[in-house]
């Protein structure tokens, strides 16, 4: 099996190209069917998000497979394959595993640590699974990639710190109030930015929204979007007394909120803190307001500073995520190696040898008092039986494994001889260790083609 990946992302292609190469969920089954009906492609998954389109495939020949995928993408979207190639990245072999794990861990995302990508990859895999476009290799690879995504999110803080201005405002508000449940926000000015910030705050539990704007109708319009209340601009400071968070984003050229006014507001609040977010340029809130007790003022530069610090932290966490990915890649490789024919044949023979020795020991105990010559004869006899029994199947297994879907024969052989059971389910620690040791010895010492009949005797 040869893993290949053909794709493009925000790093390699502009939006004008990315939007042409999408595979909507409703049409993925059809696309997957067109792709897997090509002889050289045995498995495929199409990941299509706003930032990337990637086609993961298992091909019998990597070069032919890549050509087939490019041809399919170009044909499907009616594009010139040569023109398309400029924007594509092509990854083959083990690097595909690393790439997928990095994508799922959101290390390859536009915003490192964003949470959506894991769900998007899951969805892509489910489409492929339901369309019958995946088999053992991709079932294992993608399921393991979901574990990678989960591990990275739980074992690192990669997704914990806000990396947008509006989320940074939410994060800071939570550092003051802990929970935003039941809080009141006062929005001064009905601009887009204050609307976005209010939206995030409302999503995080803010209960009531008050909107003040010089044009009352616009205040009403914005308040209606949040089921809030529009207030007359002149009564701004009366209502500020009841607010916990103030978002200001007016187009005024001078300060709209000054220190004496806020000092007056704070007098009747009983020590309740007030968090002011000034996202206007020029600023609406006098920075001196921050000197008041229990008042916290953040302007756009402060919020940017928070975002930058958080991005740096995410980069640090990304390095930890890379080490998790290394561990998971090693695990996947171990699984894939188990599908290789040489260790499988070695394991079959090792198992046969263990059985032969155990049975011979039992028989010798029953017989008792045999001469050296008789012992050698019995030993040679059992060896010969085992070798002759295994020679045919192992030779044919080696031959079959060279076919395009050869790993399925290996898989069947492992299943018939119960090798995975012995190794994975800890059926017998001694047996498992012996099998592994024998298999390793054979792999290390004998060339693959010469291994076989002489094993153990």
């Amino acid at each position, binding site marked *: 099996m040869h893993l290949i990946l053909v794709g493009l992302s925000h790093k390699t292609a502009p939006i004008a190209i990315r939007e042409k190469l999408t595979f909507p969920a409703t049409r993925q089954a059809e696309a997957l069917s067109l792709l897997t009906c090509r002889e050289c492609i045995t498995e495929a998954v199409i990941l299509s998000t706003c930032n990337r389109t990637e086609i993961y495939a298992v091909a019998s020949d990597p070069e032919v497979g890549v050509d087939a995928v490019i041809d399919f993408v170009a044909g499907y979207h009616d594009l010139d394959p040569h023109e398309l190639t400029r924007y594509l990245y092509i990854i083959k072999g083990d690097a595909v595993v690393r790439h997928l794990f990095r994508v799922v861990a959101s290390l390859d995302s536009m915003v490192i640590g964003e949470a959506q990508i894991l769900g998007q990859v899951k969805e892509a895999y489910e489409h492929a699974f339901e369309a019958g476009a995946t088999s053992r290799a991709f079932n294992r690879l993608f399921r393991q990639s979901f574990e990678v995504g989960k591990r990275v999110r739980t*074992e690192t*803080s990669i997704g*914990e*710190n806000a990396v947008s201005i509006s989320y940074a405002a939410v994060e*800071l508000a*939570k*550092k*003051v*109030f*802990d*929970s935003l449940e039941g809080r009141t926000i006062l929005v001064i000015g009905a601009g887009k930015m204050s609307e976005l910030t209010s939206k995030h705050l409302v999503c995080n539990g803010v209960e009531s929204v008050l909107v003040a704007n010089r044009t009352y109708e616009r205040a009403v319009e914005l308040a209606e979007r949040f089921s809030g209340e529009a207030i007359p601009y002149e009564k701004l400071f009366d209502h500020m007394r009841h607010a916990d968070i103030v978002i200001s984003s007016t187009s005024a050229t001078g300060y709209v909120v000054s220190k004496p006014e806020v000092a007056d507001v704070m007098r009747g609040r*009983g*020590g*309740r*803190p007030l968090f002011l977010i000034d996202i206007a340029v020029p600023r609406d809130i006098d920075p001196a307001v*921050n000197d008041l*007790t*229990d008042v*916290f003022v*953040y302007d756009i530069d*402060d919020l940017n*500073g*928070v975002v930058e*610090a958080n991005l740096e*932290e995410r980069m640090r966490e990304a390095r930890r995520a890379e080490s998790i990915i290394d561990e998971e890649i090693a695990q996947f490789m171990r699984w894939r190696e188990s599908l290789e024919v040489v260790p499988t044949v070695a394991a079959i023979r090792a198992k046969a040898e263990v059985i032969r020795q155990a049975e011979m020991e039992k028989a010798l105990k029953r017989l008792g008092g045999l001469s050296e010559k008789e012992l050698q004869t019995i030993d040679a006899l059992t060896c010969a039986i085992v070798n002759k029994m295994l020679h045919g199947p192992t030779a044919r297994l080696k031959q079959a494994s060279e076919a395009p879907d050869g790993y399925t024969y290996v898989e069947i052989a492992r299943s018939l001889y119960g090798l995975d059971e012995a190794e994975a389910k800890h059926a017998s620690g001694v047996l498992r260790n012996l099998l592994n040791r024998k298999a390793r010895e054979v792999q290390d010492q004998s060339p693959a083609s010469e291994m076989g009949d002489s094993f153990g005797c």
Partner: protein
Amino acid sequence: MLTAAIVAFWFATLLYSAATVLYAYHFLSKRRPYSWYATFLTGAGFLCHTASVGMRSVAEDGTRLDGPNQLILLAWALVLVYFVVEHLIKLKVYGTIAVPAATVLMVVSQLIGGRTAGSVSPLVENWKIGIHVALIVFANAGFILGALASLAYLVQERQLKGRKPSMLFKRLPSLANIDLLARRAIAFAFPAYTGGLLLGVVRAVETDPPGWWQDPRVMLAGLVWAVFAVYLGLHYGERASARTTASIALVGVVLVVVLAVIARTVPAGFHVFGI
């Protein structure tokens, strides 16, 4: 039995020290498994600590209330109060504050343990004094935890005011949460302190030593009570900012420490304890 108590004590100190390291590592790295191990070690340390106190009491026919032993009991109460608080607030970050404090108390108890106990006053040989001491020890644990939380509040508030978030800013809980912990810890400690003082006063009235109310330790204890009463009055009456009440809590706990030092270094007077 005494040897077993000493061994258990050192085991407890060792476990608290290991938990301190793990809590610190958890605080810096935010890796959850470390906080679990830290809590486990603190729990194990607490069991050893309890066993040590119990065995020592059996070996010595009662719990001695000298200075070192009071510190050991204070550390025990502090860990117990921390577990209660953690159960209520569900934030392990406070272990980073409380467990090191308990560890320091354990170590200090051994550093000042050289002096032998003086003769026990007949005033002290009464059940009321036992309860009086137990209540004061628990109250002091609550005051210490409240003051540590108040200190964290002032640090976090400074970070927020400074508008340059540091690592400490991200690791410490929200202002509301820290303030809640401080308030709850002091609100729990205050009735215990009041009860402890009342029992002491009742015992003093019963025995009526001359000028007992003029003893500097009695007066200082009254001042501690007044400071925390003001704290609670201002906080629950919403008549002061959280920053002001946090400062009051710190003043209160400084007085608690001064009281403990005076109790130990001024052996004259009616109310001699902790030696």
